[in-house]
């Protein structure tokens, strides 16, 4: 039996190699440390008449050697771990977005087509998936050991996590950040389906309507269209507020001279806290929708704005 569970995602093999590498190093050092200790306590036990001779002078030579040795090995391990982290956990360009909301003590999942589920996440195999995660109350953590992924889910923030499952099957989903009484019951499943099975599931799962279409309705209802141009319709031009056509995925210049990449988090932050990142040449007149717009509406409007990425 291997100490790590069977890998089932694209990033697991390399990550496992790192852990096994660390394991080999650990065993080697332990053999050295325990071996030397055992050797010395036997050889130089009080009863032994072995000649102790003179104790080694110039101890600094040993010191320099093992200090330098440790430094080199440790630095190598650091580089290995950091390099892998940077490579594995940067999101790919194109990924299937799935929305996850943590709540004491359940996982609420919503798909682009409006399919909702609780404590289960259906997804297709061999497809990069990007989770857009937030919490309604305390900090949770979305963790799937078989995929070697784990990330905290925070209230008031959008965190992202991506992975690609390489195997179909059902895998444990754990909350690993202590979240109160029934923390241990906040267990779900990730159900990885083959492409056709996933399509089939999407078609049959109950849906509250396509997120983009729903988002477009909400865009009107919340009055966003009063100022922002979106699609061909809507908006009083670009006088009071920037057009949202082609914004998503672009680099937006801000009034403080910096720029920002317009991703899900930026759109979300701009709705909840508009004055923090004001687009260059516009006045900060937009009201905050914090506490006004429910989490579910927020992700629909964001999905709608994302759909405008290619222009009208």
């Amino acid at each position: 039996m291997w100490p790590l569970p069977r890998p089932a995602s694209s990033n697991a093999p390399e990550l496992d190699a790192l852990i096994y590498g660390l394991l080999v190093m650990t065993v080697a050092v332990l053999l050295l440390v325990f071996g030397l200790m055992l050797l010395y306590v036997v050889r130089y036990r009080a009863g032994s008449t072995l000649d102790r001779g003179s104790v080694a002078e110039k101890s600094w030579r040993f010191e320099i050697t093992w200090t330098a040795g440790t430094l080199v090995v440790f630095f190598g391990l650091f580089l290995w771990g950091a390099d892998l982290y940077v490579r594995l956990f940067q999101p790919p360009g194109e990924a299937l977005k799935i929305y996850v909301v943590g709540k004491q003590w359940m996982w609420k999942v919503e798909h682009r087509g409006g399919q909702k589920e609780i404590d289960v996440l259906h997804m297709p195999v061999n497809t990069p998936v990007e989770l857009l995660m937030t919490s309604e109350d305390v900090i949770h953590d979305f963790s799937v050991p078989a995929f070697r992924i784990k990330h905290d889910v925070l209230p008031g923030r959008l965190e992202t996590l991506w992975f690609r499952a390489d195997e179909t099957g059902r895998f444990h989903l754990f909350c690993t950040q202590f979240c109160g009484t029934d923390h241990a019951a906040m267990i779900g499943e990730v159900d990885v389906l083959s492409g056709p099975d996933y399509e089939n599931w999407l078609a049959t799962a109950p849906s509250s309507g396509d997120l983009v279409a729903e988002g477009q309705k909400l865009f009107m209802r919340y009055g966003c269209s009063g100022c922002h141009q979106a699609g061909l319709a809507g908006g009083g031009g670009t006088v009071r507020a920037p057009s949202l056509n082609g914004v998503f995925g672009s680099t937006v210049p801000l009034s403080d001279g910096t720029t920002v990449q317009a991703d899900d988090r930026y759109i979300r932050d701009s709705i909840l806290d508009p004055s923090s990142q004001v687009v260059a040449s516009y006045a900060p007149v937009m009201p905050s929708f914090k506490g006004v717009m429910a989490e579910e509406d927020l992700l629909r409007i964001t999905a709608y704005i994302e759909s405008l990425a290619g222009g009208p």
Partner: protein
Amino acid sequence: MSATLERNYLTEQWTLRSWLLTTDHKRIALLYFASITVFFFLGGAAAALIRLHLILPQGALLSHEMYNRVFTMHGVVMVWFFLVPAVPVTLGNFIVPLMLGARDLAFPRLNLFSWYLFMAGGIVGVAALFWGGVDTGWTFYTPLATDYARGHVVMVVVGIFISGFSSIATGLNFIITIHMLRAPGLRWFRLPIFIWTIYATSIILVLATPVLAITLALLAFERIFHVGVFDPALGGDPLLFQHLFWFYSHPAVYIMILPGMGIVSEIIPAFARREIFGYKFIIWSTVAIAVIGFFVWGHHMFVAGTSLYSSIVFSLLSYAVAVPSAIKVFNWIGTLHKGSIHFDAPMLYALGFVGLFTIGGLTGLFVAALAADVHLTQTYFVVAHFHYIMVGGMVSAFFGGVHYWWPKITGRMYPEMWGRMAALLIFFGFNLTFFPQFLLGMQGMPRRYASYPPEFQVLNVLSSAGATILAAAYLLPLGYFTWSLFRGARAPANPWGATGLEWTMPSPPPTENFATTPVVTERPYAYPPPGAEPTHAP
């Protein structure tokens, strides 16, 4: 030497008043010994409940809520009322002035006041934990602890807050004592390493504890008045709490482990009858740990949503702080080389410390490696890693130190065979308890779970079996130490044939420690000391 009716700090006076109002560092050390022993067994009882409960996947005896309260109590009591103070306030209090050739700490009354603060904090904290407790974990993460958890969060926090001032006062007292009260000729590089580690620990105590105080005060304010520091619903930032908390709590693990390293650095040369290897390197590595230890707190938050760049920097610094620990391990082993090694109980604990600390340290490298941390953090792997350092390391060192200085403190020898047996049993029980937890963590079992999927049961049962042995093994010393107080053989001045000023005075020491201030003319660890061989044959 017959010391039967000799006047010493114990026989001086036997009224309750003479104990509760004493300013003698030796008596205060005993007050602390009594207090932290109670806290240790309290925290231990909570640990026993946890392990008992986890024998069954659905949980054997507690509700989820109760389980959460029990593990919170275990953490709070063990960290703040045992591990942090344990060595400095007991062995440190007793031995530091003796090692320095001083008559007391620099501020004897402040020392007594520290004990009262500690007791006040401990009683408030433990009362709250019994009164209904809290279910936040010892880490009090927000907004769980500020807005969602029920229970006496504020009261527990107040208890920790008060005892924090005891830590600060104790730290200050040691710093000033070590600067001002060294005997003539006792230069910095003639000091025993135990003194250096207590010094480094005190610096951390004084610098880091105020941050904890601020953090806990903000937490309490937020909980009572909803001021919106940490709760995002009120405009706060939950990660701010984690930064502040770990800015104290990471250095705090060095508060816990450094004095343990100091004890081991005394015991190993004493029982190898050989000068310590790399004296100055051990000292500088101690200082390095104390300094770098302040800049690694972010490694607790790699998956918490901090930036990529900060993660990389904290990972690098975490590897850096491991280097001085490795240096120490190599030097302890170097000390064994060409020694004449005796296997009395203190040495068994010290050797156990080196082994278990090495395992704890090496597994720390797993969670310091960014990518590996993603899989291993927040699982039992972290629990095992932490306990190898804290229980396998620090508690072993503490027990080693108590056995080593027991003859000096009490004037009685403990029964050596029992001592050795307990040491071996603790080593075995410990490994059986915590080694399976490394495997559980690798398999992905999350920590702080009151119930768990059935595939984790076998390893959990193994761990619980180990805990049973460990619990029994921890009770042994309580028994034979108590026995030795009344029936143990009288201890000579220097039963181990060790160096150090504390071994030049009678056991137990007279109230004023040194009738005439000693003059130090020698380097430390000059084994064999004059008049060398151990005067005690086991």
